């Protein structure tokens, strides 16, 4: 069975400091990993995905298969980055269907 672990429920940093939100997964196959974000009073939305290897709002995440990790990083945090961040894993659930499993989330607070 697949599992997504976000070890930190809360993370607080100062503006301009580097930030890293940790995500570890367990899955025997080849996973697709995503980061979703929920800003205050907004809906849950996709931030980035490992396949596209993109940088969104200054955030990057690299899939490390050896360590089964997909940590989210940003070198200089901004106050507007304060939000709830969820790591998610997508796997094949049968036939051509795929299932997305979320971690419990990390609440990031960026202090001025």
């Amino acid at each position, binding site marked *: 069975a697949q599992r*997504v672990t*976000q070890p930190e*429920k809360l993370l607080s940093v100062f503006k301009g400091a580097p930030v890293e939100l940790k995500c570890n997964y367990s899955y025997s196959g080849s996973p*697709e990993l*995503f980061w*979703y974000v929920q800003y205050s009073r907004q*809906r*849950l*939305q*996709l931030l980035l*995905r490992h*396949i*596209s290897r993109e940088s969104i709002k200054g955030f990057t995440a690299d899939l490390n298969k050896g360590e089964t990790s997909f940590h989210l990083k940003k070198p200089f945090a901004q106050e507007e980055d304060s939000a709830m961040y*969820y790591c*998610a894993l997508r796997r*094949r*659930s*049968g*036939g*051509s*269907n*795929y*299932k*997305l*499993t*979320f*971690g*419990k*989330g990390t609440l990031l607070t960026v202090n001025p």
Partner: protein
Amino acid sequence: EAGVAQSPRYKIIEKRQSVAFWCNPISGHATLYWYQQILGQGPKLLIQFQNNGVVDDSQLPKDRFSAERLKGVDSTLKIQPAKLEDSAVYLCASSLGGQTFGSYNSPLHFGNGTRLTVT
């Protein structure tokens, strides 16, 4: 584009009562999901539809929960009878059809959710 619409936004009921939630996905999205998010936890998939067919309902408590998507567009999720532990935010999401592995053309788009309180 219009986003995923859900109603109601909030609902308070007593245990053993019934409740229904409605979701209208983004136009053209073939796949529709219902997630349950209990306070302090990540969203948990309850049921996934591809058009009007169910492709995954393994985590749906079928003794009390039911969902349908009769015409392959909007969907309703029902709880009957509700229990205290059903208090949660119920999220609807949709994505383009054909969730081909490795295809990143179909991220999930979420609605604002319905916050259910069972007293």
